[in-house]
């Protein structure tokens, strides 16, 4: 049993750490806004700043950390990706080292040139059209795709949380087979100027409105898509990204660890600088207890994530481990947020403080209906099969 991070990944970690602390953290006020009424808060960094940061990140050779090398990325393993995400999560700046959804990793050679590489190089934005306005998070695909001659005709509406951009295409999930059948869903790449495809919403918002995240809505009205634009095989959309998607759960777990780490730092500063009754509050036992509880939670969660990441890198199945990571990381972060509120002597979700924004981003994927019950169910299935945990 070796608890040391490999030397090369340590280097990556310190590289990202420096990048976050030197380049990203000083920009936080630009996002949060300096005015008390949040009138100058923004959703994203200004374009020129962002381009500068991207160029810097590309020069470090870390662009596309999660993207396999044959697709033009840096191809770091799961543990490496976890380390990078853990560092990146310690700032509220919406920045990633070329993050592309693994659903797109299964593109063929032509699609790679036309769609994947532009996304990786930030020339195009991929709008992931999976959710539907009527079904919410039930993951039923109501949108229909009909094959007529050499193209598919798509009909339906979608919502997406993807970032809006000038040049874009949609990654649309639509039912080609029987409704409600998992095998009947296919994935299509729909060009920006495809007939019958329209997008609304997604304007960048400033001020207090930048705090809420509103999805864009995509309408496919008899939208014609050439047959070669199908991603993967017909009816096999849920097989896309098979190799990479499970480990994304670990990476999100690492994000929770990073966020909790930042919260711990902020709380420590607060405890050491705030006085009550002539004494720094860090002297008080209940504050000490809160800090200690946070530290224990973070440490435990970090070990769970790293262990699972090592397993994934060894090619073992991480179904149960990933479920454990998601469940534990979410609960840990909730606990840490409570402790932060305790130390700050009030809710840490006051707009304008980084805490609230950090937690919101990290917990978004656990806030869907039944998300945690699902993880518990996965873990329990393994236990009931008689596997030793």
């Amino acid at each position, binding site marked *: 049993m070796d608890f040391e991070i490999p030397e090369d990944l340590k280097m990556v970690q310190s590289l990202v750490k420096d990048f976050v602390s030197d380049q990203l953290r000083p920009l936080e006020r630009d996002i949060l806004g300096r005015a008390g009424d949040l009138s100058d808060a923004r959703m994203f960094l200004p374009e020129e700043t962002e381009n500068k940061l991207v160029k810097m990140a590309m020069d470090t050779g870390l662009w596309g950390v999660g993207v396999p090398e044959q697709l033009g990325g840096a191809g770091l393993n799961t543990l490496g990706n976890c380390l990078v995400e853990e560092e990146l999560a310690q700032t509220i700046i919406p920045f990633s080292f070329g993050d592309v959804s693994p659903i797109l990793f299964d593109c063929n050679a032509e699609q790679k040139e036309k769609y994947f590489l532009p996304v990786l190089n930030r020339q195009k934005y991929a709008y992931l059209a999976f*959710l539907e306005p009527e079904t919410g998070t039930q993951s039923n695909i109501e949108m229909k795709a009909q094959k007529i001659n050499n193209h598919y005709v798509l009909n339906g509406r979608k919502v997406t*949380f993807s970032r809006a951009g000038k040049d874009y295409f949609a990654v649309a999930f639509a039912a080609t087979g029987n409704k409600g059948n998992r095998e009947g869903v296919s994935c299509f790449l729909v060009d920006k100027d495809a007939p019958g495809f329209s997008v609304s919403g997604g304007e960048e918002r400033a001020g207090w409105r930048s705090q809420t995240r509103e999805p864009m809505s995509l309408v496919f009205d008899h939208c014609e898509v050439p047959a070669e634009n199908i991603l993967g095989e017909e009816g096999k959309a849920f097989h896309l990204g098979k190799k990479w998607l499970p480990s994304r759960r670990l990476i999100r777990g690492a994000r929770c660890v990073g966020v909790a780490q930042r919260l711990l730092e902020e709380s420590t500063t607060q405890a050491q600088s705030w006085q009550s009754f002539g004494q720094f509050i860090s002297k008080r036992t209940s504050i000490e207890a809160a800090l200690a509880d946070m530290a224990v939670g973070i440490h435990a969660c970090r070990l769970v994530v790293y262990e699972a990441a090592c397993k994934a890198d060894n090619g073992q199945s991480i179904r149960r481990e990933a479920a454990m990571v998601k469940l534990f990381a979410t609960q840990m972060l909730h606990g840490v947020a409570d402790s932060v509120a305790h130390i700050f002597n009030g809710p840490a979700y006051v707009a304008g403080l980084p805490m609230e924004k950090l937690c919101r981003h990290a917990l978004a994927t656990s806030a869907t209906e039944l998300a945690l019950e699902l993880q518990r*169910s996965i873990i329990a299935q393994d236990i009931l099969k008689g596997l030793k945990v």
Partner: protein
Amino acid sequence: MPQRIQTDVKTIEAILNEILNTKSPPVGRCRLLSSGFNPGHALNITEDISGHKECIGCGNCIDICPFLFREPHRRDKTEQRTSMALESIVGEDCDRCGSCILVCPQVDTTIKNYVVNHRMVEVMSRLGQRIGDEDELDLDLFLEEAIDQA
């Protein structure tokens, strides 16, 4: 507050199924199939009403109805909070979820048990179709990708 000896569901199963299959709030008719007030009711009256099956107007069924949550303006149609009011404002738009039966104090526990055991879909069982297996991914992973976009 039904009687101690309550309606045996076996004797009314056919009609109960008919009621539950109909697209209309079933609470009123289930109440009429129940045993009615028990002698120990807490109403401040001298009359013996044990066995009576009136709606007491508590409004539980109106408060629990998921359809009225989605379309709250329908509640404005009437001030009444009886099962009759529920039937008139929801009518054929009933989801047949059975919640109104479960919250009604006048419906027999035997009938409620029947509804729970034979009619209500357990929420957790839906999990099954979202969990994958060794060959297939969990649908939730795609959901996470969709939500977790920078």
